[in-house]
């Protein structure tokens, strides 16, 4: 089977997280949350280490990572942009905002800009429906978005 390559500090981080959760297979989702929090995403190697440390098949880890939309195997951009496509945002024109972001960045949902600055994802409802349509850049929420405002928001991060 494959040999996993990670830096020592990365490896130790994962090991510590797993240990903090008692190296129990049932804790895999909690472990993945913490590990993704650290690495930003869950590459293959990381999942393999998690599987080994929790003594569960790596197929199960991947089965979980590929099931839950919160987990991702692709690295995000420096400023990850998420467009809310919840119903409230949808009926208030979120798709037009999304189209404009796609156009401005020249990327599709799930992609990262070539310079690594921005990545684009969609999500379902951040619970800020009062401000619909809503987008998030990193942790910052921008409410009452319109296609016209997209340029300004992106400019903040350029």
């Amino acid at each position, binding site marked *: 089977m494959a040999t996993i390559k990670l830096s020592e500090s990365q490896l130790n981080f994962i090991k510590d997280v797993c240990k903090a959760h008692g190296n129990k297979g049932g804790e895999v989702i909690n472990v993945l949350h913490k590990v993704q929090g650290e690495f930003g995403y869950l590459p293959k190697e990381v999942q393999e280490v998690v599987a080994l440390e929790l003594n569960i098949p790596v197929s199960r880890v991947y089965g979980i990572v590929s099931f839950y939309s*919160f987990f991702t195997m692709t690295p995000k951009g420096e400023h990850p942009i998420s467009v809310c496509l919840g*119903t*409230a945002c*949808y009926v208030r024109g979120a798709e037009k905002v999304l189209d404009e972001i796609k*156009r401005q960045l020249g990327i599709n949902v799930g992609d990262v800009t070539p310079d690594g600055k921005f990545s684009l994802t969609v999500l*379902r*409802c951040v619970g800020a*429906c*009062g401000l619909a349509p809503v987008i998030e850049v990193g942790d910052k929420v921008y409410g009452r978005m319109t296609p016209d405002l997209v340029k300004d928001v992106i400019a903040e991060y350029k």
Partner: protein
Amino acid sequence: MHVLCCGGTGCHASASAQIIENFKRILAEKGLQDEVQVIQTGCFGFCEKGPIVKIMPDNTFYTQVKPEDVEKIVNEHIIKGRKVTDLLYMDPENQEHVSDSKHMGFYRKQLRIALRNCGFVNPENIDECIARGGYEGLGKCLTEMTPQQVIDEVTKSGLRGRGGAGFPTGVKWGLCAKNKCDEMYVICNADEGDPGAFMDRSIMEGDPHSIVEAMAICGYAIGATHGLVYIRAEYPLAIHRLQVAIAQAREYGLLGEDIMGTGFNFDIELRYGAGAFVCGEETALIHSMEGKRGEPTLKPPFPAVSGYMAKPSNVNNVETFANVPIIITKGADWFQTIGSEKSKGTKVFALAGQINNVGLIEVPMGTTLRDIIFEIGGGIKGGRQFKAVQTGGPSGGCLTTKHLDTPIDYDSLVAAGSMMGSGGMVVMDETSCMVAIAKFYLEFTCEESCGKCSPCRVGNKRMLEILEKITDGRGTMEDLQELRNLAAVIKDTALCGLGQTSPNPVLSTLDNFWDEYVEHVVDKKCRAGVCKKLMRYEIDREKCIGCGKCAKNCPAEAISKTNYIAEGHKLPSMEIDPAKCIKCGACMSGCKFNAISVK
């Protein structure tokens, strides 16, 4: 003295601006501009009787005020101190005029039970919570009631699960309590995945202690010492506030060992969801907490028999729990007086969409949609026409004008082809295409389907494909028939609640907006102008001055010059090649001469 004039959009449309103007003018004429201040306020939530004018400090409440009434109010009320009786609100029951809004029970359509502390207390301060009676319900249970009495009280209150299907909460607790076991779990379902719903988030952010308290009460009732909250990882603030609340409760001895000196132990841990709508289904939620894929399993066995770690578990959602402490302190008899015959208490709705007062509201069960949308919600944004209201999220349906006067509770919503769901309520106007809305929800379900059972995995995909065909202008009448058959079979055969209810948005729009489907299929037309493939951008050659800006803006190079020069213009007009047009609208938004329209 203050004159408060409703500036809510509903009232605004009915001339509140003119009323304010008149007040200011007349008061100035009388030299009262410094004594009496005229202020425009937000919506009073009573738009049916708008515009509203309220005189402070005596709280006189004038309804249906017309601009010409202003003079009378100034002369009579402000100068002479006499109320203008015919503008006062008339109580429909006893036909008496009521002047003080505080005495107008009818006016207050909202009753906050689950949200009783939201916006009142500092959620990160347990003292404020205790000051408002927090943890007294728990104290009462632990010192004055047996677990069975607690269950009986909750059963008697008629409280039903607020997460969707409305199963009686007390009965659920009782079923779980029957399966006594060394380890049992109280689980709070805080995986609010319904797009357009944020009730649970708001409660956890605004009043986390009520959840902590209720879970402990439930633990006492069923005999569990462990509590678990399954909360969306996308709710960092709610997570934080819950963590703070749990820590404070522990510090005060309201969680942990020997709570309030009664020997009862109970503690709560958080578990994080990871973005799967299906995990709102209790068996899927439990599997997710166990570190598995969030796939539902068949019931029975119910969680009450074999839940988390195969131990008896009781799962309730956030809003359900938020009702529990107050039922204990105020009693089931009190709770029973609120709501409709079969659905007791109140329901929190997240009012969103094309409505003026987007917000979180709580109304007694049995309130009509009309009251919610046109009173509390302040009506439709921009004065447009109400078209539909979607309740119950992807499991619910789209209701229309004919349902506006239905008193809403669990059963009436199901009868109308929708469902309560968790309480998302998205209002739509004529700019929403109902076929596209059905497609939107089905896209959601397809994305969120776990893939375990074939009707949901493949069936919903096929339904979505048929809807895509229709919105692309390739639909046939047979497709509509097939949609109905598929919807019926999926409802009948899918494994879990998500699958069984997934056809509801399609079925309800087919039922309520059949004409719109037929229009898409037969006339190839989308009246809301949403379905791009059915749209056609056109340049009015008489209006076009030939500046060419549209051609520059067009990303598809679909616009070119014609030979036609309109009268008074110097350059030939432009035209759009429909075959190349991608319907992005860039041409239209850039045209300063309103020469481009969409058909």
